[in-house]
């Protein structure tokens, strides 16, 4: 059959047309071999643009389409659907990027135009060799895996569970709630974090559609979109969840009469026993025994008063790690953040001098369920009169994190208000710029200003101890351009947000992409903010980038909706880029079998040929590259297509 190609060049407003002379390119494309029609249009992805292509397919009898526009990632699907509507196999379309790969990265207009011509030429040469690709559909499992049970994971889990989907919620800590559970109040409304979080936590526990795995980690995710096989590793908490009634008498009866080990949940300012819960309203209300500090584990010779005091004998020192396997259709990563380690920037003296705290420690101190019962005290037990809050610790700093952590300014304002309110302290905020860009945020900033909090636009040079256990802050007042000093009783370091230390491992297990800092990467910063590059895997909350609670909740609900959209559609298309093996050419050498990472190719002894299971093939094409007899071809990436494309970018 005669090849009849239509070439469609998008202006993308001025994004392309501002650099590339689209008329000249269209004229050029119209003379390429087998091109029947070439057009340019303002927005090819718009309804009239799509209609134009469909009309041309019918009118000109087109059987190949080249769209020169943005990228395959952004609009490949759009134009494949267009082809389908026009009655063509969707894989007879080739997308050519003249925006991301040309107009946006090229300075000179003439060069950009020439580059566009060569890229389109390559697309036209390539599309000649396209063949129809048929895909099958697979059903989608209606269960969802959510990794991380902070406010993002909890929100997404509840949305999905309420819609009747079954959720496996996996949390690596012993208790759910994440960072939000540590907070006292939330800005700008000052509602107490517990009052809005704990009802959601208990809803998670009580919802029959949610299976909660705490003290557990996702070990491995196999399979593909719609059909993931998840392996979850449950660490032993040494208290049996099926027996424990949450009376906490084990904690009371522990041989350690007083808590004496650093509490992770209290960020180092509180103590716990070897058997502990994060806080009294913890979910699940089943204590964890820390083998590092428990005498029974360290010496094997404890009198086990915890066990004696337990009415249901739920304590089990022989508990072992457990592996659980579940099947899900979609995955939501809501793995959260950690705060910047303030000891890394030594000028602040954190960890060396007393009475210097981080914001998250201050949250624990302000929290009435925290280690001080909500009392703000200096280490000598007195009430601080003069407090400094230093913003941008570890943020907006080329040596640590160049980005703005987005939430710290508002946390600082909140703490300033609360410290004035509770102990009448004189508070000074050292800021770089105050960023209060949310609903009610600017109003809150103004309110705090009018309350009499001092604001110094300043860069802190160092914090040094001074007389009477006080601290001297040496800083440059950047409005006065002068170095000044200020003596205070207490310093709060407004630490920025960072990805977890093990973000690379987490990313690999979940098969996601990260930015260079380690934040999870979305498919598109504006149009697909909760979708990842891997199909069926969504992202939510501060794991993507620092964000406040309203944004986190909105994103979690969006991720839940995306997962639901996938599940309720009910099917996914099989991988289109799978390979085919030409029986006639296959010599049975089995090179392909040795390179296939997915065991998708097997050897048929009887016929002495290799055979592919397209259900397992993920379309990398490694086998096609090694097959010595060229018996293997990869759909959409055949040798002919790639040779033609390479030739096309080089010459006419």
């Amino acid at each position, binding site marked *: 059959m005669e090849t009849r190609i239509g070439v469609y060049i998008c202006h993308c407003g001025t994004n392309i047309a501002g650099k590339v002379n689209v008329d000249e390119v269209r004229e050029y494309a119209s003379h390429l071999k087998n091109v029947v029609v070439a057009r340019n249009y303002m927005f090819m992805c718009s309804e009239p643009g799509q209609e134009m292509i469909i009309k041309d397919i019918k009118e000109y009898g087109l059987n190949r389409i080249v769209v020169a526009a943005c*990228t*395959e*990632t952004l609009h490949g699907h759009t134009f494949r659907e267009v082809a389908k509507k026009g009655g063509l196999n969707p894989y007879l379309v080739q997308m050519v*990027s003249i*925006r*991301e*790969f*040309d107009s*946006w*990265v*090229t*300075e*000179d207009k003439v*060069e*950009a135009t*020439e*580059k566009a011509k*060569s*890229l389109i030429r*390559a697309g036209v040469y390539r599309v000649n*060799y396209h063949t129809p690709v048929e895909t099958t559909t697979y059903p989608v499992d209606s269960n969802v895996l959510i990794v991380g049970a902070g406010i993002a994971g909890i929100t997404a889990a509840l949305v999905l569970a309420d819609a009747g989907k079954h959720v496996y919620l996996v949390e690596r800590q012993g208790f759910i709630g994440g960072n939000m559970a540590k907070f006292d109040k939330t800005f700008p409304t000052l509602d107490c974090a517990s009052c809005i979080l704990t009802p959601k936590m208990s809803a998670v526990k009580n919802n029959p559609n949610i299976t909660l795995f705490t003290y557990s980690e996702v070990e491995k995710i196999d399979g593909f979109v719609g059909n993931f096989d998840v392996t979850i590793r449950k660490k032993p908490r040494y208290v049996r969840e099926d027996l424990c009634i949450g009376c906490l008498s084990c904690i009371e009866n522990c041989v350690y009469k007083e808590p004496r080990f650093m509490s992770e949940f209290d960020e180092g300012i509180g103590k716990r026993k070897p058997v502990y819960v994060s806080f009294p309203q913890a979910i699940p209300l089943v204590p964890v025994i820390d083998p590092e500090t428990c005498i029974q584990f360290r010496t094997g010779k404890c009198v086990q008063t915890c066990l004696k005091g337990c009415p249901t004998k739920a304590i089990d020192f022989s508990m072992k790690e457990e592996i659980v396997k579940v099947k899900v259709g979609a995955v939501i990563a809501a793995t959260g953040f950690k705060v910047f380690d303030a000891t890394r920037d030594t000028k602040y003296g954190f960890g060396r001098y007393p009475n210097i705290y981080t914001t998250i420690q201050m949250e624990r101190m302000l929290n009435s369920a925290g280690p001080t019962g909500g009392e703000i005290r200096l280490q000598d037990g007195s009430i601080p009169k003069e407090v400094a809050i230093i913003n941008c610790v570890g943020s907006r700093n080329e040596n640590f994190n160049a980005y703005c952590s987005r939430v710290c300014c508002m946390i600082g304002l909140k703490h300033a208000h609360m410290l004035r309110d509770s102990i009448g302290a004189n508070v000074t905020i050292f800021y770089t710029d105050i960023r209060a860009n949310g609903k009610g945020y600017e109003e809150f900033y103004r309110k705090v200003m009018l309350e009499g909090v001092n604001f110094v636009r300043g860069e802190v040079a160092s914090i040094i101890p001074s007389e009477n256990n006080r601290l001297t802050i040496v800083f440059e007042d950047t409005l006065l351009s002068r170095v000044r000093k200020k003596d205070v009783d207490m310093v709060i370091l407004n630490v920025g947000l960072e990805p977890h230390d093990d973000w690379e491992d987490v990313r*690999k297990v979940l*098969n996601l*992409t*990260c*930015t*260079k800092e380690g934040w999870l*990467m979305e498919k598109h*910063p504006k149009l697909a903010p909760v979708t990842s*590059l*891997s199909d069926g895997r969504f992202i939510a909350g501060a794991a993507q980038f620092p964000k406040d609670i309203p944004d986190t909740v909105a994103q979690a609900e969006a991720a839940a909706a995306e997962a639901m959209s996938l599940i309720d559609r009910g099917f996914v298309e099989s991988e289109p*880029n799978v390979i085919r093996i030409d029986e006639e050419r296959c010599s049975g050498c089995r090179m392909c079998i040795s*390179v296939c*990472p*997915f065991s998708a190719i097997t050897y048929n002894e009887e016929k002495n040929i290799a055979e592919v299971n397209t259900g397992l093939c*993920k*379309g*990398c*094409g*490694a086998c*096609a*590259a*090694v097959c010595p007899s060229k018996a293997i071809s*990869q759909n959409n*990436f055949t*040798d*002919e297509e*790639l*040779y*033609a*494309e*390479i*030739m096309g*970018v*080089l*010459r006419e």
Partner: protein
Amino acid sequence: MSENFEPKIVAIFCYWCTSQAAELAGTSRMTYPPNVRIVKTMCTGRVDPQFILWAFRNGADGVIVSGCHPPNDCHYEDGNFKWFRKYVLLSRTLEQAGIDPKRLRQEWISASEADKLKKVLTEFTEEIRQLGPLNHTIREGGV
């Protein structure tokens, strides 16, 4: 070497990492020499050494192949290693065939490393400009 020599460079990028970096370079409006023409494969493991020879034969002055960082970034487990093995052998073969192996560059650029992409492509274009045209005879005949 001509003052106005503009090298032709073919860049074979994997879909998951380096192509995404190239998209990010675009959305970040970074600029790099227009000499670079990107061809995508799903994985560098798909890259057949013959693609590179074909590019040189068709007038490329330089070829760069880039994929996901080893050891574990590859979307298909270890396609990057599979390519790398071929690359080492191919470089030696190129030398024997009289093509300066510097004309074939191998990189690992992740989806977030748009700045690295810009740097590498700018640098490589300059290197090839210094090396001058390959002037490899183009044999007639299509694909």
